[in-house]
């Protein structure tokens, strides 16, 4: 596929690994990839095992499925179980466990839960089912928020009164700041989220360099993109620079997408605070519908329990999301917690660090051990 295959070229990868090795010398570097899509690429293509042992990647909180706390899943199930409601969701959210089961189990108990690819599909179901109430489970960072916003604008323009959104959109900058403020973690730089940045641009990350003195390179999602971003981070550090750079210039513009930002501003406003799995409550880190979209707001329309539910004791998703531990260091990884029967969110989404590692990383790691190479 164009714009995919050429960024998987092994010759280019070897050159970049050589450059990374030369730049890193004998010093230890720890870079965080913020985005779950990057985590997926890193494990899928075995990037950790081609890097020199002293260049370590730490997985960050940028998987929107993984950061949804259990209480919000319970709220979603409560809405989905309301008689007359058709509850629509991206497939990723279907198996995220709440305190008493997930959405798929709610469907098995009789709730009308449907998987959709796009919020526009949910709106179409509402148009086609005028006597039912259709709720869309809106999750995601600024990457998906504009699509929910445009869908709601269209619903209002077309007078689709039986369509509502259960809004759980989150924003990327507050968790990065929370990570930087966290005393547990020492990082040398960030691989910035590629697709969030198509919307927000690169400017919102300036504080990372200016206030916290860490470089950040926004990167694409193919192996060469990630390797090139790591090389760019090391080049900055070796030449004494600390900047926000853009490896993914083929897609990301510095100013982002002004139309998408406008759509977000038209439909949403910041919540005073929102609970993140593993990171706790972060102020102004999530979006809710503005007052003039109240008629489309599932939170105002349905009885939402809104109960805060603590994660299961055995689950260490919080530490995985903050990059404090690696997936396989979790007590229940691969035993009690697997993609088939996940305990924590990181094992559910294909972008979750645990699921990505479970599906791909183990094999690479086993192969590396067999070859006598680095095993972490």
């Amino acid at each position, binding site marked *: 596929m164009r714009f995919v295959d*050429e*960024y998987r070229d092994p010759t*280019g990868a*070897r050159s*970049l690994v050589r450059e990374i090795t030369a730049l890193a010398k004998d010093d230890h570097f720890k870079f965080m990839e913020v985005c779950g899509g990057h985590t997926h690429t890193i494990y899928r293509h075995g990037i950790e095992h081609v890097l020199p042992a002293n260049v370590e990647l730490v997985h960050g909180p940028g998987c929107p499925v993984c950061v949804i706390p259990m209480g919000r899943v319970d709220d979603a199930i409560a809405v989905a179980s309301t008689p007359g409601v058709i509850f629509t969701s991206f497939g990723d959210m279907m198996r995220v466990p709440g305190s008493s089961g997930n959405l798929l189990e709610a469907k098995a108990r009789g709730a009308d839960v449907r998987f959709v690819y*796009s919020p526009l599909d949910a709106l179409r179901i509402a148009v086609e089912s005028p006597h039912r109430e259709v709720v869309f489970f809106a999750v995601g960072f600024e*990457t998906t928020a504009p699509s929910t916003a445009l869908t709601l604008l269209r619903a209002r323009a077309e007078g689709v009164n039986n369509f509502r959104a259960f809004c759980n959109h989150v924003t990327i900058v507050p968790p990065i700041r929370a990570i930087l403020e966290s005393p547990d973690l020492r990082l040398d730089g960030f691989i910035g989220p590629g697709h969030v940045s198509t919307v927000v641009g690169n400017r919102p990350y300036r504080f990372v360099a200016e206030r916290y003195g860490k470089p950040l390179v926004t990167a694409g999602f193919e192996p060469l993109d990630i390797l*090139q971003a790591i090389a760019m981070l090391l080049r900055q550090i070796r030449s004494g620079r600390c900047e926000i750079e853009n490896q993914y210039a083929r897609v990301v513009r510095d100013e982002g997408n002004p139309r998408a930002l406008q759509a977000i501003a038209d439909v949403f406003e910041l919540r005073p605070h929102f609970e993140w799995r593993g990171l706790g409550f972060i102020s102004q880190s999530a979006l809710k519908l503005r007052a003039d979209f109240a008629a489309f707001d599932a939170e105002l329309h349905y009885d939402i329990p809104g109960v805060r539910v603590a994660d299961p004791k055995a689950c260490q998703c919080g530490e995985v999301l903050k990059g404090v531990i690696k997936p396989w260091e979790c007590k229940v990884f691969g035993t009690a917690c697997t993609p088939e029967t996940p305990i924590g969110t990181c094992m559910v989404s294909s972008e979750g660090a645990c699921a990505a590692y479970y599906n791909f990383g183990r094999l690479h790691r086993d192969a590396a051990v067999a070859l006598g190479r680095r095993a972490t």
Partner: protein
Amino acid sequence: MCVGMPGQLVEIFVDEHAAIVDVAGVRRRVNVGLLLDDEGIAVGDWVLIHVGFAMAKIDEAEARDSLVAIEELASVYGDELAELMESD
């Protein structure tokens, strides 16, 4: 959810903010409302698609530049390798 797919615009319906895109041989209708700015879009352009919306136009010149940079790196190391072999 956050992984986008590159697709090529086949047909554009400006009034409906919609387009038909070809993604690896499969044609699908997507919303292009987020790309109808001054720069605009045209049939043949490549776009990044995300949950049914075209989020960004793919800049072919930038795409080429980053690959050229990597190829140049490969040639630098290739030269070094050749010199190393010759020195033996």
